[in-house]
């Protein structure tokens, strides 16, 4: 009897995970892709996010806003990934295809765009982890300050100040980057 119950429970858990996966996978993948800029990395991030959801004692039913939770997890895991690369610049293979397929833009424009994107990712990796998370949620995921404050269990004022300071720092570095100082 016990042996029969176990497969039923496992199947139910897999079905539940699949439901969650199907409903939120694209959102998680997109969030991870925006930060990492690579589909392979985004897949790994996405997989680790869902594995954590399935493997740990985190039941999807116990999370009030599952989409927010998954997006936050994806952003965090993706930031961890780019942080682990340090200052090494990674050019994903798919960007080469993109370069060729994107016929509307000139090659110079595409290269410049890639440079800016890589710069911003490198900067995100060097930011304070909490500031980087707030920045990614606000500007890459498009959440507003009250939502971020609630997700990160802090006040709106702290979010606003951190974002302001982070922007100021990025502006300064971008200015130097554009002048070729970095």
């Amino acid at each position, binding site marked *: 009897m016990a042996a029969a119950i176990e497969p039923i429970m496992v199947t139910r858990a897999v079905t539940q995970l699949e439901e969650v996966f199907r409903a939120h996978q694209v959102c998680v993948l997109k969030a991870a892709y925006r930060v990492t800029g690579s589909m392979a990395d985004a897949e790994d991030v996405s*997989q680790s996010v869902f594995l954590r959801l399935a493997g740990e004692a985190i039941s999807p039913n116990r999370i009030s806003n599952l989409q927010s939770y998954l997006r936050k997890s994806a952003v965090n895991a993706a930031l961890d990934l780019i942080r682990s690369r340090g200052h090494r610049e990674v050019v994903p293979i798919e960007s080469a295809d993109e370069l060729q397929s994107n016929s509307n833009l000139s090659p110079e424009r595409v290269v410049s765009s890639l440079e800016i994107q890589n710069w911003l990712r490198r900067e995100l990796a060097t930011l304070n982890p909490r500031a980087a998370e707030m920045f990614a949620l606000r500007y890459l995921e498009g959440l507003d300050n009250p939502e971020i404050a609630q997700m990160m269990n802090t006040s709106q004022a702290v979010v606003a100040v951190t974002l302001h300071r982070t922007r100021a720092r990025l502006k300064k570095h971008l200015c130097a980057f554009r002048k070729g100082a970095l």
Partner: protein
Amino acid sequence: MKLFRSKQDTYLDQAISELRGEKPDAEAFAASSERVWKRLQTGEGEAVATSSAQPIRGCADIRSLLPAFNRQEFPPARALIVKNHLRECVSCRSYAYGRGVDGATSVAWRMEQGARGFQWSLVRLTFAAATVALLVAAVWAGRNWYVAGPPGSRARIDSIEGQAYRIGPTGERALKEADEIGEGEFIRTGANSHARVRVFEGSQVEMNQRAELAVSASRRDTTIHLDQGSIIVQAAKRHTGHLYVRAPDCTVAVTGTVFSVNSGTKGSRVAVIEGEVHVKHAGSESILHSGDLVATTQSVGVVPIREEIGWSRDLDHEVALLAQFSKLRAKLEEIQTPGPRYESKILPLLPADTVLYIGIPNLGDALQRANRIFQQQVAQSTVLQDWWNKGGKSNQHPTPQELIDQIHAISQYLGDEVVITAWASSVSDSHGPLLLAEVRQPGLKDYLQQHLADTLRSGRSTGNLRVVDPKSLSSLAAEERGMIMLVTPKTLVVGGDAASVRQMSAQLDAGATLFAGTDFGQRIANVYSRGT
């Protein structure tokens, strides 16, 4: 509100939108989703998840991955990274093959042997016993050295009117002028007698009739044990420790002040003529200032101070001094101090691991006004002039007047608040606390450098003081010690070494931190919100 966005804002927004706009087509997303779902279903998960959840940062990470690598659980790309590292890194290769380079032991496919626990040997036991014995001896010797106090006598008789006696282990003997009193010996004045005693550390004690006291000392503190009677104490200024007067029912702690203690069978009275004293009695502590008097029991009652010290041979002088200090105190209380502060501009800039935060209002103006009032009073009162000159306060360098002028001049450049802070990493790296203040107007660096040059010209020591700006700070060696004052257009940072000042400078350049969001930061912010 900003009506125009700067170019930098536009560039940054453009960069963000480039990042947001970059996305593969829906087919690629669908294919990725399927791949991820397959990997989740086939249980590749655990091993592959490691690749994203556990980044490889160095040899330690590679070594932790060896068991999974040997079980061939990694995808080809990840396995290639590990294989490549093992080819290049001798240390990790030796580790992987169980040769134990760098003291590491074999892992992975071999069965791990249980660690051999610590075992006592005769040599270890002897060494441990010797260490413990040495430690106990050192503690005992140190304690004895501290408790025994300095060598020599504890007090000397300056003058006697009538009879005074020494009570010691050998019995009771009459005292005369210039007699020395040792530790454990009591001095007692007879009926209608009066004595002046100089304590070895410089304090003077005037004893009324039928008073009895002894003096004991440790390396740090000096204690007058008053068994009975009235005394007036002029405590000497001291750099460390306190002078205590211990009566049967109270303890008085002071550093450089004039006060009287009257102890009897019903209780004690403590009166302050000049300065501040702390009185502990019946489990509570009172802080008394010039003109204050406290009685330890109701039956002792409160009397006017003039009556309390009426027996003193220097009554006129003491009373005049008391009157002058009372007048001075009343005038000083009228000085308007800075209003409460409701926010701090420095708080949001401190590191997240800040462990010490002391916010002091900028009292430069109040201090200057207090000094002006004090100088006026000193000029008008010969009693105060005598007291001031007797203390040698006017001869020291820099004089209090010069010091206050300097503090006032510097305070004019600073904001409403000065903050003293330290953070966990600075404490662990043996760096001292830092002083920070907002700079309100330009010219502080020039003023400080001018002042430094004047001090050097006059041949006085500057105590290794350096005034630097962010550029010249970088030229200082990290281990540079001394008072380093970093002046930036917005902030003044003062620290005891270049490394900590540089660290704080970098922190300030980075802008707002997460300190305001921590528990400690929020508690401080709450205090500000109520006004401090």
